[in-house]
Structures are given as C-alpha cells and as structure tokens.
C-alpha cells in the first residue's frame, strides 16, 4: 500500500489540482475512483426497498474518508466533488457497457463490481445513450455538459455545482434547465435540427 496518499496529502493534491496541476489530478483520480466504486458497490449491494440511498451522501462519505476535513476549504471540497462526479460517470458507464455486452452474449466480460452497478441499463434512463448525448452536448456547450455531469452523476446540488464551476447558482439553474430539455429531446429521439 505504499504511495497511498494520506488525508492531508489528498487535501494538498486537491488544492494543487485546483491551481491547475494536472499531475495532481492523475494521482487523485484512481484513488477517488477506487474509493467511490467501493462505497457505491457496497451501498447498492445493501440496497433494499425503503432504504434511502443518496448520491450526495455517497460522495460525502468518500470525502470524509479521503480528505482531511479540517484542512480542506470549500474550494477543495468543490474540486473533490467535481472529481467524484467524473469518476461516478466513468464507473456507471463502464459497467452499463459491460452489462449491455454481456446481455448481447458478447463473450467474457469481467465484471469487477457488484452486479449492482451494471444493473443501471435496466432502468428507464439508458446511461449509454445519455453518455453519448452528453458528449454531443459538450461539443455544443461544454459548461452545460459539465453541469449535468456534476448534478446527475455527482449528485451535487445547485450551490455545490456553482462552486465547482465558479459561476452563479442562477447560471447553473439556467444551464441545468436548458440541458435537461435538450437531453430529453435527444433521448426521446426527438432531436432538434442542428
């Protein structure tokens, strides 16, 4: 387990990343990915009817476990949440994809995580289609796609999203509103021109 950063180091890395240090991000990503996958898998495995599971609670738990809360500032927290949102998207999409190819009989697919995570495509939102649509949205308007990533995959609220993107909550609200309408059209096969 050598090289595993301590809570304090994670805080410093977050700050470095916030300051534009890409290497810090490279060190943080696998760590957050692993932690989130573990928590997500565990929570979803334990998921039962009537049991509440909240995405923000999950991200908060990762935060409590990984980051030195006494040292961290609000900005550090925002950066961390943004990182989590990206990792959650990756986790959920990876497994939706694995599950989808397994269903098609696509040969040996190693499912590392609880089936839990792979169960996503069974729900009403097709995560793979959403992922594709989000990429198209990113090409059209990068910030709106980020807003969706933070809110839908990261479970962040308006304020937290605003903090992470350094814009006002009003802007986030408007971006979210338009992005949702746009994506809804994309996913319902009702595409606007252009």
């Amino acid at each position, binding site marked *: 387990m050598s090289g595993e950063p301590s809570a304090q180091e994670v805080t410093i890395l977050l700050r470095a990343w916030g300051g534009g240090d890409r290497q810090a991000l490279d060190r943080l990503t696998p760590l957050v990915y692993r932690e989130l996958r573990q928590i997500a898998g565990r929570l979803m495995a334990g998921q039962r009817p*009537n049991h509440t599971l*909240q995405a923000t*609670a999950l991200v908060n738990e990762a935060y409590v*476990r990984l980051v030195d809360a006494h040292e961290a500032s609000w900005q550090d927290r925002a950066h961390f949440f943004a990182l989590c949102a990206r990792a959650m998207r990756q986790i959920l999409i990876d497994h939706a994809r694995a599950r989808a190819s397994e269903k098609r009989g696509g040969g040996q697919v190693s499912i590392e995580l609880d089936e839990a995570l792979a169960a996503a495509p069974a729900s009403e939102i097709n995560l793979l289609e959403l992922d594709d649509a989000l990429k198209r949205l990113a090409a059209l308007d990068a910030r709106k796609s980020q807003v969706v990533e933070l809110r*839908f995959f990261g479970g962040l609220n308006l304020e937290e999203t605003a903090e992470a993107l350094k814009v006002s909550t009003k802007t986030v*609200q408007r971006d979210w509103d*338009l992005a949702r309408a746009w994506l809804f059209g994309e996913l319902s096969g009702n595409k606007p*021109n*252009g």
Partner: protein
Amino acid sequence: MDDRWQQVERIYHAARELDAIAREDFLAKSCAGDDALRQEVERLLSHSDQAGSFLESPAIEVAAEALAKEKRLSEPATPALEIGMMVAHYSLTGKIGEGGMGEVYRARDTKLQRDVALKILPQAMAHDVERMARFEREAQVLASLNHPNIAAIHGLEESNGIRALVMELVEGETLAEKIDRQPQGLSCQDALPIARQIAEALEYAHECGVIHRDLKPANVKITPEGTVKVLDFGLAKVLDPQSPSGGLDPANSPTLTTLATQPGVLLGTAAYMSPEQAKAQRVDRRCDIWAFGCVLYEMLSGQKAFEGETISDLLAAVLTKEPDWNALSDTTPPSIQKLIRRCLQKEQRQRLQAIGDARITIEETIAGVGAVDDSPLSPQQPDTSDLQMVAVLVKRHKGKLALAGALLAAFVMAGSYAVYHLSRPSAKQQTVAPASAPSMQITQLTTSGTAILAAISPDGRYVAYAQKDAGGQSLWLRQVATGSAVPIVPPSGVEFIGLTFSPDGNYLDYVQAPQSGAQLPALYQAPVLGGQTRKLLGNVGSAVAFSPGGKQIAFARGHSGGDTQLIVANADGSGERVLASKKPPQFFLPVFWYGRPAWSPDGRTIAVSAGTFSHWEMNPEAFDVRTGREQEIGARHWDRVDQMTWQPDGKGLILEASSAARQQIWRLSYPGGEPTRVTNDLNHYLGVSITADGAALATVQTRSVSNIWVAPKGEWDHPRQITRGLSNANGFGGLSWTAGGKIVYYSTANGTSSLWLANPASDRTEKLIQKGLTDVTPSACGKAGLIVFVATVRSASGAAIKSIWRTNADGSGLEQLTHGGSDTEESCSPDGRWVVYASTSSGNATLWKVPIDGGKPVQITEKGASWLPSVSPDGKWILYYHSAGARSPFRATIRPFAGGKAVRTFPTPFIHGGGGMPIAVAWMPDSRAFVYGVQKGGVSNIVEQPIDGGPVRHLTRYTSGRIFGLDVSRDGKLALARGLQSSDVVLIRNFQ
C-alpha cells in the same frame, strides 16, 4: 459555442419566464422570419415541459433502484416458519423478533425440556458451505463462553435446510427498551450496576479472546431479577461474509443489511460503531470499549452519543464529532464522566485499554471512592474542569435571575409570531446582482448544530454564542484561534435574545428571558475575562448597540399599550430616554426576535429595523441621536430585518434580512441605501456582528433539509421517503393530502419556491405552479379537487401583500380569494365550501372564513390573537391557537365551526417566532383527536390529543429527524415533512 446556439439559449430563457400567451408574442417577435430558430426554441420549451423529473434523481440512485428490483426477484426464499413447527427437536412456541441476524423464535427443547431461543440463520449463509464451515468453528468458541452475564450459546442445529443457532432464552426487557422508558436517562443508582455487569461480561470474553463487535443497548437484556445478560457475542464477525479480519463494514455485514428494510435499524446499529469500524479498519477489543462508552453515555443521558440521519452523517459524526457532554446530568460523578470520555477517545491508543479498568472505576464509584478525582485513568484526556465550572456557575447564577415583572404586551407575543410566520419565504425573486467576491471565506466555528446567536469581539479574538441544550439554552465564550470555549451561562431554562461586545472588548452585554415566556427579557453584562455578571436593565426587547465610545447603548422595547420604542441609555443602564416610538400597526424590532439596532461610527445616527403589521414589510430606518429625526434608508421592502451593524468607515451597513426565499447577509450602502448581497446561498443566516477593523463578521448559519414521507394507517412508525434532496426544503411551509391521494406541498427545490404535487403511488413529483405567487401552507380542498394557498404579490410600491389564492389540481384556474393584505395559514372546511384563515390586516390576528368560490370574508374570532385554524373532518369543530392577550399563553382551542364560544382548550405547545418552526397540527379522521409534532433533543415525534380532554398519547417512536409539517388523510394515512436542521456559528471573511 456557436452564435446560433447562443441565440437559441437567450430566447429560450426569456420565453421560459413568460406565460403561454405572452410567450407566443415574444417568440413571434424575437424569431421574426426565422422559422427554424423558432421551431428549435419551441421544441426545447416543450421538452422542458415534458421532462418531468428526468435526470432529477442522481444516476447512482437510478442504478441502485434498478438493482434493488432485480435483487428482490432473485433472492432465495426463506422457508416459511410457523408457530408449532418443529426444527430438529425444538418446537417453535413464539416469535421473539426480527433480531440482529434474522428471525428469532422462542422454542421448547423437547429433549431437555427447557425453553430456548432459536436464531434462524439467513438463507444466503445456510447455503454457503465455506461460510458455514467457518461459522461452525467460530460458534464452537462462542459456545465455550460460560459467564453469568453472557447469554449462552447451546449449539447449532440443522433441519430441512434450515440452520438455527440455539441460545439461552433470556426473559426481561432490553436495555434499549429501558432507556426508551426513561428518556431523561437512568439514575446513577440504576445505570452503574448495569454497566458493571456489562463490563464483567466483556472482561471475561476478552480474556477468552472473543470480541463482541456489536455491543448496543438492544443487545443487552435485563432479567426481572436485575441480572444483565449480554446477547449475540461475536456473532457480528461470524455472520459477516466478507470480513475475516473482523472489520465491520457499516453496510455490508448481514447484521445490517438484513435489517435495511426497516428504516432506522441500520442507523441504530451503526451508532455504536467505533471510528476504526467506521473506517472498516482492523478492530480489536478496544472497539468494545468504545461501544461500552456509548452505552454508558446513553444510559446516563437518555440520548445516543452519536447520531445522524444517514449512514454517512453518522459515520462523519463518529469520526469527527464529540458527543454532547452537556447532556450528561450534573449528578453524574466526575469519575464516570471521565471514564466515558476515556472510552470515547477516537484514537485507539488514547482510549481506555482494558475493560477491567472500567469495571474497577465503576465499582469504586458505587462504593463511594470514585467521587475523588484521582481515578486510575491516565492524564491524557480532555479537560473536565469545564464541567466543574458549569456546576459552580449554576450555583452562582441561580440567585441572580431576578426578572423584570413588567406586563408583556399582547402585541409582543402575537407580533413575534406574526413576524416569523408572515415573513417566511415568498416566491418573488429579487434581481440584485450577487456581490460575493470569489475569495469570500466562510469558516464554521461550532459543530453542535444547535447554535442560536453569535457575536464577535471587536478584536476578532473571541466569539460569544448561545446554543440550545437539553435543559434550555447556554451561553459560551470561544477563543477563535484555539477553539477552546468556556461557559458564561450554563444550560438553563432561559432564552437569549441578543449578544453584544462592548467596543473595548471588556464586556459582553446579553439579553436573556426565561423560557416560560411570561416574563420580559432583561439586559445583563458579563466581564469577558471572568468576574461577576451584573443585571443592568429590565424589559429590554432587543440586543443592544453601543455608541462608538462605549458610553451609551441603544435598544428596542415593547410597551403594554402595543407601542414599541427605540431607547438610548447610559452603558450602565441609567438615564434612559426614548429616542423614537411607533404605534401599531407600525413597530420596531419585536421581542424574542433577535433584533439589534446599529450605532454609526461617527456617533450621530442609530439604524434600526421597523415594520408595518397591516401590509407586511420591514425596512431599516435611521434616527438622529440628538433630535430623533427619522429617515428611511433606501426604498427596499424586506420581509424581515433582524440585526444590523455599521461598517467601520460608516459608508455601509451589514444586515441580516430576508427577502425572496431566504434570510441572507446583505450590505446596504449609506446613505444611498443600495443593497448588495454578501451571502447568496440556500442557507439561512441569523444575526450579524463585525470586528472593529471590519474584516470579519460572525453569524449563525442554518442548514435545512426537509423531504416528504408517507406512512399507511397503523404503520406511522415506518414512514417511507418519497422526495429526495439534500438541500431542498420540501414541505417546509406545510403540506396536505389531496382527495386523489396525492400530496401538495411547498418546496424550494432547485432554489425557487413553488407548489409541488407528490404521488406516493409512483414516487413522482411534479411542479404545480412554476413561479410567482406561491408561498406557504398549501391545503387541498376536499372533493372539490381545488388547492388553496397563500401567495405574496408586490404592490406597486413594492410592499408584500399576502392573500389566499386557489387553483385547480392541475395548476390551472388561478383565482385570488382574499384581498386583505396579510392573510395566511389557510385551510379548507371538509365540505370544500369554506376556506378558513388567519389575518392580521386589522392589526391583531383574527380568524376569518371565505367561500371557496369567492365572496365576502366572514370574521370568526375577534378578541385576542388567533392563529392556525383547521376544521375537523366531520365539520363540527374548528381548532386554532388562541391567546386572550397580555400575559395569557397561547393554547390550542376548539369551538363549534357553525358558531359559538370556545368549548375546550389544551396546553398544546405553541412555538413562537424566535427560530422555532411553525407547529404542525392535523385532525385525525374520526374528528375525535388532533395530532401534532413534538420535539425533544432534535428529534420530532407525533402525539395525539383527544378532544374530550383525555391524556396525550405518543403515536410514533422516531429516533431521528425533525418534523416541519404533517397531515393525515381521511383514511388515516400520514404525510410528513421531515428532515434535519442544524445551526452553527460561522465567520465570514473577505466579504467586501
């Protein structure tokens, strides 16, 4: 981003603000000639309408729900067990419960002719050969434990695919039940012998190499003879499928997940988890010592050492928070307090190392030796001198709480409630540009979650704050740099209204009132560095402001005639003079409302907030200190302004005020009166004080979450959550069942206030009214399918006008029913013909009714102050809160709806303005009782008051969460607005 997209976006957002007709016109104009553009915008607008809750639930929840569905289908079914059946040679005679690890039955051993307890192992485990082998090995060790305080394990049986652990049957109640019966905590005489026996059981097991891992009050039984039996020793480990190391993963152990179907149980178990268990690290016997500390704490205080609404909150509490040490009663011997602190050290190495030491301490204390503060515990622990200091202060203070005996003006009580109630969020969004600089820093100082008020010293080194405690409120002085805090006033039955440091920083002036509300608040002065507290003045209705040199003070005061005054006096309380005075319906800061005037740095002007009762609004006003000449600052109309403070350069006022959705910190330029935001978030802020250099301000930040829960008739103890969100105030201002079985509620979801409908059948929510108009207390109108609600609109001059509106259940057919100006708290008569409501338009709070189809309002009550009317389902009675005036307290009152005098009153608690939430009341379907929420230690439960005057009965046993609103359907279903609220002192820097 291309230009075309920007154009689409701009037109889209502008169109979203308009109603359908205006939208047509607007689109025609702004897309003139460009049909493609118009089509695209229209398509987006229509998608936005259709999108419903699309993407509103985060992805992880969507995935988790899908999994839960699949799982339910794929689980191996447990063979059905019935009473009378045989499992091996055991005859099942009764079900004891759904215990920690599956079902537990009482059974008769037909061979040995004795009664035993059978624990049926989960199917998933019974079918796992490897796990069963491991389980058998471990069970042998457990079966070898032989101690009078440990429930014995007799063996393991298998029969027809059912595996069962045979255990000693222990009669009696669990410690959890015992604590439940004594919510104030057990006495030391009761608690210590129990604790001693638990310690003996642990000591013996530890010597045998067995760790309990899941010690909690529900696992401790007390026989009728008083013998303690600890249950389920070591089972947490042997039943855990994935953790040979014995680390108890909070959500993965079968102990927990099999119970996750019962809300609260999961948390109930995790609450005793040590920090190392919470982190899923390797555990040793010291995790039992931690749990022992939790149990001992809970026995003596009646409350859990660590609590949280969700697993994550709870984990965070275990890892980062201290228990509320003030909750331990004064009679707890110092040696025991010290022992608990020692057991609850988060670092394993700093914790008590052997449970035998705890047993010795307890035995010595029982024998009277432990009272001497030299118990054999190492010195590395938190300072307990605070506790002793509290005791000293309690004694010292008791004699000095001489209280002013002046009359409490009817206005003051009615007014403070009105102020609070009428000033709750209104929907009108203000369009003031955010002024918060990116570098603004908010630092949280306290973590109790129960802070009320705060003030920062001029040099910024100290913060004084008041907080709620089990026994009332307490006042503390905290050093900002080190975080150490000393009590100024220990927890007692008082309420703090205002805190102010003198300009030289030597004194803290505070205004304090007894909680009973029958006496007026008085001004006290405490030397910051210790010394005698002095009472300076009686009948002081707000926090005081000091003149720049500290020689004079200013404050507001209510008078029995209903007038309120702005008063200037010498700093020692002498030489009072009235600077300005207001007659109803106008007023200065009402009592119990945390207001504070501000004295300008040049000494010439005093600013204070003043309001009008008839058309609700408040504004800062400025008065010349010499002449008393009045001058309005700015033309803004606020809903509420509490505290103000001048910036040192005299060019601006920092104030805490509410308009739009929340109470926020603002800066008002002086004398221009231009408002700019300091904070701009979804929290509430109460109070504001600033350092002499203007660099830092202290305030109390309140974070709230409220969601909608429902429960079927007869199962109110197991409500189901149907809305989600961590920053939403769903149902905060009330909620109501509709005739169609949906719930209409008010919400600030996504930062805007709107009316929403939730459908418990599908867990779907939809926005009923998008914007404008909406305010609080929606109410469904019987079979008519109408919904009535209070809405705020602004008059041409900007004043807030509150009136009753109605709408069809689909949001169409909006119609205004009343035009009084300050009408609120409406509800429908069960026949759907009338809407009853409270109004202050005439100057005092009276009840009215208006026909649902509009018409002339009819007055129901005249004298005194009346609030919160609701008509019984049989249409016979109207229930409301009433105070005859002056010194009579508010009581729940019932009178015939058809007319006539009040027939009965009840001492149902009435929560007035000062930071309390509106009280939630609803009729039971049979019209024979009403229910309401009561709060204790931050947890709300529901009680029932029969209208025949019978005793109050507790209906629920929730262990977490607060209730902000409730309603009962005609068929007995419960709807709750329930969540969390925590308030802590924060420092804000770089805010200019």
